[in-house]
């Protein structure tokens, strides 16, 4: 399956061409910046349609097996397609939990039946997936999951609640970590993992208002919800292992993911464009020495983050600490983006007083919203602090805190 550089270039142009011809028309409503921020029906439908279109054109799930709905082609083609979508700033794949988490998991550990049932719907965005790990009382502490799944004949009965359920109110399925055995001493062994339906009796996703004032997450209540035991994946009592596996997909980002961007990635040059337009002391803010220096610092980090990804592909350049770059990806990158977005906001000077909805808000308040929403990346999926623990312990071999 080795492609020549020419073949790869040809493919890149083919993708670019298709994308440009099919670029969706600019919506007249505010677009979410990631799949975690889809708060209205019009946003949802717009994005779902786009994912479907990309899938149908063959640019999503390209490396997934053909028999389940994938393209059966090579990963490098998918990577090129994904890159083109990112660079061209095309909308992201709304079914992110499906394409990045549930899909790889099912392909990896699911039964033949699971694969036939779920994979195609994941790719086409027909079946939206959500994730049920966190609970209200123990955010980052997954080992402490309390939502009960009691065996009752061929079924399990679910009782409890999950929080930060992205797209909870749109999802058809949830990847769900639940406690099947509350008595066992090793708390991890009491956990099991389910591919659980959402649109059934007793499941109640209630939207949570975010600090931005918008919606996008739910708290999902389970009130004696009955699901078939066939929803179990990995076997009863193996939930912890499956969850860790799932988190690996996320931390390694592109790992076995179907491809496509899952969020709008803010670039430093966009921040610099803001600084060109904003006036300070009668001159463009970009002429302010402090702002120039900051901008260059962010630019260096941006290029370094990208260079990290490239270097991570060269084994002899990561030989001493093989997982260092991939495990730092989230902590280092998200922290950088957050600070960059804060900077984009702060350099607006007096105009930073405005927020989404005011015609004087710079770029419609995009940067304020991006900064606020960035906390979902520094908090969700393991806070930056927890990421530092992980890197310290697993990469540097430091003792547990």
């Amino acid at each position, binding site marked *: 399956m080795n492609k020549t550089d020419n073949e790869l270039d040809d493919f890149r142009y083919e993708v670019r061409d298709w994308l440009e011809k099919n670029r969706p028309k600019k919506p007249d409503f505010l677009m979410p910046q990631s799949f975690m921020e889809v708060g209205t029906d019009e946003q949802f439908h717009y994005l779902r349609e786009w994912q479907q279109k990309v899938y149908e054109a063959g640019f999503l799930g390209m490396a997934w097996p053909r028999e389940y709905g994938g393209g059966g082609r090579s990963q490098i083609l998918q990577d090129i397609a994904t890159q083109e979508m990112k660079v061209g700033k095309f909308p992201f794949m709304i079914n992110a939990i499906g394409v990045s988490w549930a899909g790889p998991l099912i392909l990896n550990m699911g039964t033949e039946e699971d694969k036939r049932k779920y994979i195609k719907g994941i790719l086409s965005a027909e079946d939206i997936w959500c994730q049920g790990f966190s609970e209200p009382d*123990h955010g980052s502490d997954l080992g402490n999951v309390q939502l009960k799944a009691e065996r009752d004949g061929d079924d399990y009965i679910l009782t409890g609640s999950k929080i930060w359920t992205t797209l909870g109110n749109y999802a058809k399925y949830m990847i769900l970590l639940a406690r099947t055995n509350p008595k066992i001493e090793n708390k991890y062994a009491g956990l099991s993992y389910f591919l659980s339906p959402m649109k059934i009796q007793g499941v109640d996703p209630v939207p*949570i208002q975010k*600090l931005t004032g918008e919606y996008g997450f739910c708290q999902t209540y389970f009130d004696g919800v009955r699901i078939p035991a066939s929803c179990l994946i990995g076997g009863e009592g193996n939930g912890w292992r499956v969850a860790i596996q799932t988190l690996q997909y996320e931390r390694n980002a592109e790992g076995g993911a179907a491809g496509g961007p899952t969020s709008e990635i803010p670039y430093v040059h966009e921040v610099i464009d803001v600084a060109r337009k904003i006036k300070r002391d*009668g001159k463009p803010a970009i002429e302010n020495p402090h702002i120039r220096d900051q901008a260059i610092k962010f630019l260096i980090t941006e290029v370094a983050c990208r260079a990290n990804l490239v270097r991570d592909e060269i084994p002899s350049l990561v030989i001493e600490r093989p997982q260092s770059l991939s495990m730092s990806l989230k902590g280092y990158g998200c922290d950088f983006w957050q600070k960059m977005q804060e900077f984009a906001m702060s350099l607006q000077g007096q*105009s930073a007083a*405005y927020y989404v909805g*005011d015609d*004087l808000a710079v770029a419609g308040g995009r940067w304020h919203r991006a900064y606020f929403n960035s906390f979902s990346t520094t908090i969700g999926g393991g806070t930056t602090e927890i990421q530092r623990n992980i890197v310290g312990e697993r990469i540097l071999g430091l003792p547990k805190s």
Partner: protein
Amino acid sequence: MSDKLKIYPVINFSDEQEQLLEVATNFCRNRWPNERIRQQIKDEDSIDAYVWQEIVELGWPGVAIPEEYGGSGLDLAEVVTLVEPMGQYLLASPLVSTTVVAQALIVAGTDNQKSHLLPAICEGSVASQALSEPHGDWDLLNLNCKAEREHGKLSLSGTKNLITDAHVADIILVSVIFEGEPALVMVAKEDIPQSSIRRETIIDETRRSYRLCLDGIAVPVDNLLRQEDTIKALNRIELVSCLLHTAEICGANNAAINTVVEYLNTRKQFGRFIGSYQALKHPTVQCLQEYEAARSLLYYAASVFENEHEGEVAVRMAKAQAGMAFSFIADRAIQFHGGFGFTYECDAQLYRRRAIWHESQFGDGNYHRQKLAELLL
């Protein structure tokens, strides 16, 4: 050269300040519990008329107005002790904007203006100022709005923005170009058609901000402040605003620290109170220390405010430090509240939004450090 860099700060704290600080703290705590803040966000009007009436009865709008005009004849240092607790409890009142306008009138008002408007302010007239323009520059002399003599009146034109509480203000002080030079004009409520005023969407939802279209508004020529003192008045406005904003920031900063500390002492993760983790404890201590530094600079600035040069240096230092400290704690407040910090319900967002707003007003840290470099280096 170096001599002006040898700054040995003095803090005077009068008995009046001590009393006012205590009274104001109790007042704000009682009048403005957390539920009230949430209500104020929803209300069209963020100011509570009853609370303002009480403030007026306490004599606070006149604290720094000379006794001859019905005030208490105290200093801005005393106003600082009133504003700091208002910041702490996020209490919405037009005390800051009203005080600023009064100070501008003292500097550049005509005798007639002073003898009419200052007593009115002491008795509860709400005053606001319209200094900003959509170009977004902090330089108060960068003016596009105009006043022109027409039919024996001053005819105004242009757009002013970011006017706090404009819809309830009895008088608005507007900066314009008049006869080629900067000028300040008082515009009375009755001279402004409702349609000229439009509410803005600002980041700090506990405040109300308005845009004012001056086109078509005409006021008596007597409403002009002494034009030869305009620059002096604008300087005074900038520094008084910085001082009082810093007081407000320090109060809110303190509240943000308390909010974080309470959560760190309540929330458990992995079987331990999260405040026991150094990853959260140490940055919180750093936030505390930056806040304490800001508050010390605030009271230094309040003490030497009327000294030329030293007053300006101290105020700019205080604003720069306070803005940085408050942004830092408010940012970390979201992070350290974890998932809850990401919700609208958590108070962290209130502080973060307020910190953004404060940095947008009268210059951020970078701006004041530049001014300080000009003053000191």
